[in-house]
């Protein structure tokens, strides 16, 4: 054999092995993650190109709690968790950011996001917005980081760190933020009884008496649609309600129905945080509903034109029922808290 052939063979062997190594280097190493929820929950739709994995969920969790995501951007120094506290069902007890902070709970089943529905679609789309437009993440910082490249490789089999992969990891984490273990859930499963007061409040909630269920129905306690519940009667064009997005005058004064899961922990209430206590919220529905063109017919239905007209006791019972929607396991689960 001539020397040149030998040379070629060696070269071939080297390039073959280096090629193999390159593939190995970026290979994913994932374990499927099984999300548990009661069978009365809606079917969970997960995009086929982003299945839930242990590695993806853990990566999303780390990103959520890491201020590195905001470094150099308009929200420098913050992480998602700076405005979304686990103890408050991943919302915040203040309106410092200009509007009431929506909780991160069961958003896997949501299709409309933010109070006015500015974001639509699946979590991957929403997270892409949060990463690129809200935080303006500098991906070089993640690439230069000591741990992220390895975590992205394991979770996604990628040597690259792109906005899409950051969004995918966060989307997996948001699917993991599932709450279905409240006292009310135990009651639905026949494992726990409610008190007389809670039962009485539940009846008001789920019958024409209170008619709350139309918008806050089981199991998610939100219909994920937009309504005007009569907080204001005069349209203020500086308030970015649903009509700001849709352009339709029929959407004026409308906002997304928030979930009532963990509502005890998500004060202040309403898009602008105008109410501090659940008693104030109930009093709104009871006697302070203001009429306007777009008010939901449920608010002014026959016999309830002047509010629900509940007795003091009935109002207290309704609040007692709302508090059965708190999932203490969810807010205390250490596998949902900061990994740092």
């Amino acid at each position, binding site marked *: 054999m001539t020397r040149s052939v030998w040379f070629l063979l060696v070269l071939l062997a080297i390039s073959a092995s280096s090629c193999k190594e390159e593939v190995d280097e970026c290979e994913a190493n994932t374990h499927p993650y099984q999300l548990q929820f009661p069978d*009365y929950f809606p079917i969970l739709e997960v995009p086929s190109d982003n299945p839930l994995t242990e590695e993806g969920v853990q990566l999303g969790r780390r990103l959520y709690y890491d201020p590195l995501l905001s470094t150099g951007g308009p929200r420098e120094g913050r992480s998602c968790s700076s405005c979304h506290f686990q103890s408050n069902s991943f919302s915040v007890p203040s309106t410092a950011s200009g509007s009431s902070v929506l909780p991160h709970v069961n958003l896997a089943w949501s299709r409309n996001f933010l109070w006015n529905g500015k974001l639509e679609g699946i979590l991957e789309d929403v997270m892409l917005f949060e990463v690129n437009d809200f935080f303006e993440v500098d991906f070089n910082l993640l690439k230069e980081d000591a741990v992220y490249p390895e975590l992205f490789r394991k979770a996604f089999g990628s040597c690259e760190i792109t906005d899409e992969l950051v969004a995918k990891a966060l989307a997996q984490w948001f699917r993991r933020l599932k709450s279905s273990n409240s006292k009310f859930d135990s009651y639905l499963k026949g494992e726990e009884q409610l008190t007389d007061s809670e039962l009485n409040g539940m009846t008001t909630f789920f*019958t024409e008496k209170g008619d709350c269920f139309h918008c806050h129905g089981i199991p998610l306690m939100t219909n*994920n649609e937009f309504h005007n519940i009569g907080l204001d009667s005069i349209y203020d064009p500086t308030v970015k309600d649903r009509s700001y997005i849709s352009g339709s005058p029929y959407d004026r004064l409308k906002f997304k129905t928030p979930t009532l899961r963990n509502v005890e922990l998500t004060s202040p209430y309403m898009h602008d945080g105008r109410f501090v206590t659940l008693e104030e919220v109930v009093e709104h529905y009871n006697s302070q509903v203001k009429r306007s*063109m777009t008010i939901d*017919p449920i608010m002014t*239905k026959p016999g309830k034109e002047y509010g629900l007209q509940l007795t003091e006791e009935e109002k207290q019972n309704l609040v007692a029922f709302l508090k059965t929607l708190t999932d203490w396991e969810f807010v205390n689960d250490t596998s949902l808290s900061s990994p740092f």
Partner: protein
Amino acid sequence: MRKLAFVLLLALNTVLLNSCKEEALTYNLTITPHYHVDGDELMLDTIIYQNAAGNPYSVNKLRYYLSNFRFVKADNSVVTADGDAHFIDAREGTILNLPKVPVGSFKELRFNFGIPQSQNVYGNLPNTSYNTGMVWPEQMGGGYHFMKFEGYFNSNQGVNGYAIHVGNNECLADVSISTPFDISEDGSMTIGFNLNEIMTGPNTFDMDSSNYTMGIMPAMLEISANINNAFTLEQTP
């Protein structure tokens, strides 16, 4: 021995033939609802229609179930074409698919508007977000809403919303359309749904006197009684 083999072959043959025959007996039928208001095409979200009571109104939401499709033969015998309950959203333009309808000539189409009692139990339909959005609380009789029909109208006090909701087993409507049709292959039919008929014939619904029906049994029964006249068979397979 040879005889046995022959018999077995024969048996096999009949089985095969039968299975063939059975397949030939059913076809796939799609049903497209065509929404209109006394003949005018439905345009969502604008107050351009007028009902029998004279209320100018818009349609912003129409979600409902059709179920228990049956075909009536010339000899008045009734065959079930599809026993399922189908969720329909007018905004999404839902088209129904009945995978196994029987072959034949029929003189009448029947179906239920709503969900038959045996199926009208929460959790009975797949927990899709559509179905969970239609839940009718246990405390008010349970099951699912049969219809959510919502929009705006010009009332004597300016623009107002209306919400005509129907549910409860007593309010299940039985619709029959006496238009002959044939099923001889996979096909599609179009059924007309005149939204004005929800609010009239026989019971005229005046939004000015009531813009809300959920749980108000007399109102829901009146609406349910109107439904039978709301449908026509516009295009046969």
